[in-house]
């Protein structure tokens, strides 16, 4: 065989060998820090308790509530339709798939904001989208919906609407009694079907 072909063949083999030898880099796609920063500054990642409550009552199918508190706290009381995912199991494969679910808004809440912020940051770093935080968490929800939070000063008509909405919501969750009954059982057994996205190519193909 001619010399130049030998050289070319060796070159090719070395090239292919390079593929095998090169170290495997970490395959996780992480969001660009700049993108992350602008996502943090986005105000729209927060949902108010009123917005969330509205969607719960309406039975909005695009709503997916994630309760980040411990299992005991979840059992005591949680928002209806929410799933309990503690922060330590947040990054498990199954939960990550849950978060990648298309067509659903994932709303995180904990007792206050600190835990939900951390979880939100983690999810966003993994390039997951449609993740929101219910501002104020469970505490805010309790203070707003369950206990009557009076509006300071003279209430405007929008405020009045809000107050009557909250009153209705209170009745929805707790019943017409005045006593705060913590026995609103969340539907814990709602198993969400993870629609595994088929590895379908973004482009068409076929001959």
């Amino acid at each position, binding site marked *: 065989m001619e010399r130049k*072909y030998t050289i*070319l063949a060796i070159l090719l083999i070395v090239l292919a060998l390079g593929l095998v030898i090169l170290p495997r880099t970490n395959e996780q796609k992480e969001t660009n820090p700049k993108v992350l920063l602008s996502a943090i500054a986005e105000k729209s990642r927060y949902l108010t308790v009123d917005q969330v409550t509205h969607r719960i009552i309406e039975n909005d199918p695009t709503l997916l509530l994630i309760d980040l508190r411990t299992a005991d706290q979840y059992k005591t009381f949680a928002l209806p339709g929410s799933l309990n995912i503690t922060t330590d199991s947040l990054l498990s494969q199954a939960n990550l798939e849950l978060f990648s679910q298309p067509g659903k808004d994932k709303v995180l809440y904990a007792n206050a904001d600190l835990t939900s912020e951390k979880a939100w940051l983690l999810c966003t770093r993994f390039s997951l989208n449609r993740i929101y935080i219910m501002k104020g968490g469970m505490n805010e929800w309790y203070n707003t919906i369950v206990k009557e939070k009076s509006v300071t000063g003279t209430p405007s008509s929008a405020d009045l609407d809000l107050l009557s909405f909250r009153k209705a919501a209170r009745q929805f969750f707790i019943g017409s009694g005045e006593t705060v009954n913590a026995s609103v059982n969340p539907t814990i057994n709602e198993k969400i079907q993870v629609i595994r996205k088929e590895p379908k*190519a*973004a*482009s*068409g*193909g*076929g*001959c």
Partner: protein
Amino acid sequence: MKKIKFDGSFYLNPYLGGVILGTVLLLSFYISGRGLGASGAVKSTVAATVNIIAPEHVAKSAYLSQFAGGDHQPMNNWLIFEVLGVLAGAFLSGIIFNRLKLKVEHSPKITSRRRLIFALLGGLIFGFGSQLARGCTSGAALSGMAVLSFGGYITMIAIFGTAFVAAWIFRKNWI
């Protein structure tokens, strides 16, 4: 570059040709996310033509209805455009290397009529097979191999393996 002159024609060194083809293939995946192909264009054209002539037939046909009729646009297809490019590119090469010639290429041992009959039959059979295998040597085999597709390799092995045997059977036509 090794020159192979037979009918006075200059052919590129096959390895160089392979590298050029490989580059085109690579770019095809990089730009459009898919490999090259050819039989798909035939399929689209057939579907579109039948749709124009007899749309009800397309609607009834379990196969064609996947590609034509309704709001399918079979002719607005990546492959159709690619095939146009292939014709242009081959023509260009023919001009550059002085290979433009209207003729039927056949072994001196057979007539050109026999060659054309076999070409027609060969094309017919090939067209049939390409639909079944969802691709041809360019689309399924070549592009499939580039992305290490199992189906692509299987089709490639099936085509070349069978062709070895079949060529021997039909050897009178060739040597």
